[in-house]
């Protein structure tokens, strides 16, 4: 349904130009959960911004159901890494989740239902009238997820959404996103730098090289669903995939550092 072909992004011009993304191509099918992993600083966020229409790619294109993406398409929602900056502190949980629905021309009852359902799906029903800053980090990210769910996107893009929460909460949120995926029947593109997370969540993993980014390898994850934090991670295939992705990223890493030069002085 979504096709990224020959995508490239260069910042600046001439000698000072930075090639953030070299040449990235991959596809997403309906209802697929795809994780994009890569070494840190490999232009994952830039890639996601190009895919969501927030940034104009320098080369190539992103095609959604045969239509080239130009500007932010209404079929997409994005969950940002930094929930504290993407939620609106002057609006309650209800207000935050409701805001994107206001321009959708739904009747009042319908949008109220969407909001309540989404907030319930992320387990925050009792917190509709709280403000984001009254909630913990993990709960704030749940609000951001609820906002994306209520918007009813066909594709949900997630930019390292669980990178700023503690490990325990992270596991809970991973399971939560798998649950809501089934419930809301969405296609999800999940960007992360956490290899375990990518193996645990996805149907397919797109492994990237360092900047200028290219696709190193795309691998299928045939671990059975539903996944479980303990059982899934015990399976030999999990360990095997994890090791494989790890090697891909290591090999893709920057060249070994030159011997340190001692400065005379």
């Amino acid at each position, binding site marked *: 349904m979504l096709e990224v072909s020959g995508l490239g992004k260069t910042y600046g011009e001439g000698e000072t130009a930075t090639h953030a993304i070299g040449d990235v191509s991959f596809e997403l099918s309906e209802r697929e959960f795809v994780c994009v992993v890569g070494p840190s600083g490999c232009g994952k966020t830039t890639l996601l911004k190009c895919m969501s*229409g927030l940034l104009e790619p320098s080369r190539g294109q992103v095609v959604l159901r045969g239509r080239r993406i130009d500007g932010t398409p209404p079929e997409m*929602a994005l969950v*940002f890494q930094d929930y504290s900056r993407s939620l*609106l*502190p002057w609006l309650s949980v209800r207000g935050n989740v409701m805001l994107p629905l*206001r321009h959708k021309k739904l009747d009042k009852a319908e949008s109220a239902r969407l909001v309540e359902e989404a907030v319930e799906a992320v387990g925050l029903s009792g917190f509709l009238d709280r403000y984001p800053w*009254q909630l913990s980090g993990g709960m704030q990210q749940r609000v951001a997820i609820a906002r994306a769910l209520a*918007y009813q996107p066909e594709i949900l893009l997630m930019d390292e959404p669980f990178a700023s929460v503690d490990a325990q909460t992270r596991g809970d949120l991973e399971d939560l996103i798998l649950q809501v995926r089934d419930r809301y029947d969405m296609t999800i593109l999940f960007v992360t730098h956490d290899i375990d997370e990518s193996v645990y969540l996805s149907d397919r993993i797109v492994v990237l090289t360092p900047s200028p980014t290219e696709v190193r390898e795309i691998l299928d994850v045939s671990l059975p669903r539903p996944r479980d934090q303990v059982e899934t991670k015990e399976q030999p295939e999990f360990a095997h995939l994890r090791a494989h992705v790890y090697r891909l990223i290591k090999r893709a890493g920057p060249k070994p550092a030159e011997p340190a030069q001692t400065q005379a002085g």
Partner: protein
Amino acid sequence: MSARTRRLLELAVEIAVPIALVALIWVYTDTSGTFYYPPLSEVFARFADTWLFERVGSDVWPSLRRIALGYGGAVIVAVAVGTALGSSRTLRRATGPIVEFLRSIPPPALIPFGIVVIGVGDDMKVFIIAFVCLWPVLLNTIDGIQGIDPTLKDTARVFGISGKDRLLRVTLPAASPQIFAGMRLSLSLALILMVISEMVASTNGIGFFVLQSQRSFAIAEMWSGILLLGILGYVFNLAFMVVERRVLAWHRGARASSLG
């Protein structure tokens, strides 16, 4: 000392010191009051005669009307223009030097111009008050709008929030802490310019009354006018704080929680 007794003690000091000061002035001026420093009891008596409520209609109301129109008008224009300038780099560059120049003019210097062009009536005073109040709000609005977090802008774009919703529910609230800082600064300037404009070419107003009393050697009346201006300034500030606390409650909450 427990935190509670400490707070009570602090509150007591806060109340007691001003009262002690007033008592001191009262006693001092009562025994050794001079022509220029009449007994405080007399000032209070004049205050009651003048401002409760004989001259409310003739002087207080015109003054309040001027400050409300001047300040209110300035805030509306400044927020509107500031939002436009804050959102466009080109506009900002084009208008930057003009804004810097205009705001550098000491506003009382415009009174002679105002008298000639607008006349000696209320309009001139409203204009002078508005002119001085405009800049702090304008510059703070520009700053506030410019400083909106890029993540927040991206959020609005991804979720298709545009037009009125974007302005009223994303952009202006995000800039509101800074807009309020400018409005607060402007409020004290408004009172100053109200008094100054009423001291030049005027026939009523509290500023006019203070000057007129001094010229007719009614020194106690003059002091009562100064006292009223002090009270007004205090009340304005208090009212502003109450509104700000309500409107920016989220800001205080968010800041407190981010500081942990």
